[in-house]
């Protein structure tokens, strides 16, 4: 069977658009609510990134940190996260889910245990922020054996030679970090320049999917339409924070936002 991640890209291509990837933190603001959000936004999002909250996230800006701290404070544990994924998959088997987090959580769970659990709960891909290439080679191979995509990160600082080597080892999807920033930073590079870098990466192996993330919001998403996929994370986390602040329903508000995001790339 085709990995649902690849299937999602295929579908978006057929519809002549980029795939929309959302990022929400598991357990934000509660286990149930984060599951409800996933269920609700899955109508418009093509791929769901589920953040594994960690309390020393060295690459996340304030919005995602706030979401992560909120989830941890509400008691989320690794096993709860797998349960959220499993419950979601029972309602929507083919919607791809990617877990995104920091390596210590995997390390403590045990690499093999973690991957087995991913497999049994229905995780389709993994992004490990602090496990760069080539250190991730061995783990990526293990992922492949379980039919889980290990998604390589690429950055504006990644040298040309390195890009080639990473893409060569990469699974069908990679993630291009648009600019030098933590998550949720304001777009400080022009979309044109970002796309120029993106095209350079695409040329290395056009068959492999590359998504763009960091700095993508309702305002900017329309400018990146030509990419294989676009990730929106901090803007969604911010929406949850704002909803809670104004005593509104985060599920409704986030769903509206995701719908709007989608409308901008159709």
């Amino acid at each position, binding site marked *: 069977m085709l990995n649902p991640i690849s299937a999602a890209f295929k579908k978006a291509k057929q519809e002549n658009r980029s795939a929309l990837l959302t990022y929400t933190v598991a357990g934000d603001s509660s286990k149930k609510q984060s599951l409800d959000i996933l269920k609700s936004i899955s109508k418009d999002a093509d791929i769901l990134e589920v953040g594994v909250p960690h309390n020393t996230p060295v*690459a996340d800006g304030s919005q995602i940190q706030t979401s992560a701290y909120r989830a941890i404070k509400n008691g989320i544990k*690794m096993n709860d996260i797998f349960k959220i994924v499993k419950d979601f998959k029972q309602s929507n088997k083919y919607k791809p889910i990617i877990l995104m987090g920091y390596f*210590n959580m995997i390390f403590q769970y045990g690499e093999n245990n973690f991957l087995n659990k991913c497999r049994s709960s229905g995780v389709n891909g993994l992004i490990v922020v602090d496990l760069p290439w*080539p250190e991730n080679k061995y783990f990526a191979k293990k992922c492949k054996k379980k039919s889980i995509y290990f998604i390589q990160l690429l*950055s504006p600082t990644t040298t040309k030679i390195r890009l080639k080597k990473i893409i060569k080892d990469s699974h069908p999807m990679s993630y291009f*970090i648009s600019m*030098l920033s933590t998550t949720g930073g304001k777009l400080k590079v022009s979309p044109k320049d970002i796309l120029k870098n993106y095209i350079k990466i695409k040329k290395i192996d056009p068959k492999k999917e590359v998504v763009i993330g960091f700095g993508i919001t309702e305002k900017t998403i329309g400018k990146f339409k030509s990419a294989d996929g676009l990730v929106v994370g901090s803007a969604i986390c911010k929406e949850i924070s704002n909803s809670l602040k104004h005593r509104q329903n985060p599920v409704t508000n986030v769903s509206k936002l995701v719908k709007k995001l989608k409308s901008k790339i159709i």
Partner: protein
Amino acid sequence: MKLKKKIPLIDQVSKSGFWGNKFGGNFVPETLKKPIEDLEIQFNKLKKDKKFINERNRYFKNWIGSPTRFIKLEKLTNHIGGAQIWSKVVSDANGGAHKVYNATVHCLLAKRSGKKIICGDTGAGYAGKMLSMAAKKFGLKCKIFMGAKDIARQQPNVKAIKKNGAEVIPVYSGSQTLVDAVSECMRFWVANCDTAAMCVGSTVGPAIFVRICGWSTSQISRELKVQLIEEFGSIPKKLKLYNCVGGGSSSFGFWNEFMDYDKKQCEFIGVEAGGPARSKKHAAPLTYGSKIGILHGAAQYVNQDSDGQIEETESISAGLDYPGVSPLHCFLKDTKRARYTAASDEEALNAFKTVTKYEKLRPSLEPSHAFSVAIKEAKKLSKDTIIVVNSCGDAYKDRGILEKRLGRKYVKPN
């Protein structure tokens, strides 16, 4: 796992940055791979460059003021009545603590690579103070990240940082202490690594930072070795080196030159922060058997829960209040070259009282932890045993805490 002889410990590292295939590494976001690699290439080249070494030595001598004193604590020794207690007064260094060595080297490197900004973390405020001082000296713009809790409890150093023209950025996330300051500083570097250099304030972080810091603070043991030979004619037959361990930069620097001696002749004792006697929280991952985990880019023993969330620490001393510890110390623990133990807040305060009662030395709360264990063990040791305690910081920064906990008479009026 084995310690090799004749190779500096900072160089007993694998290509991917591990000591003993287990500790350290480079668990960093992709964006930092290139700046880290650049720094590695630069450092590996310069540490063999005689001109660079001379330049470093010149700054160490003329600006930092090397060597710092090595003194006998005569009255304290008589009072305790066991081993001879000596101290290496590293707080003599310009700025008042060992952090100045690492800060100076990082600024020298940043200057050479054409960086305009340098960012750094700080707990007790010494790393920040020294970096701001060095940045000013070398004409670099400086940003210091510091937990809000530490800003409140280490005001004298905060004032000094600002006076040096650096920006102090308060960190409100998590426990609002050193661990959060390091995270925030790394985030700043992720977003600004094209123009900014980063100075990690201790022997922690991605492998290259562990190595640069260890290389810098080793000045302490280079001086001590000469001073011991001057004093005793040779390295004493029974030598014990006590040092507090937070991240582990002063202790590593205090021990490095003695690494190849047999531990029966030259023993290393690292003292971690045990926290308040009544609290379960501590900052002593080596003493209390914390599991290996990844923190700030490196695998190390670290206080964490079963999921891998980093646990909050508690210690009266902001400089030791860190849940992890240098990969170098993890390696020294596992190879049994060093012995680690902890002192509580109260024990450190008592040691401070004892030392200041008998000597004209005012160790900050960090080295007071080391003094606590040294005093305790000295009683049982023979008179020909030489104990040296690294007094790596001055208590001036702790005046607020000392006044609150011990009363006015323990605060010096300056």
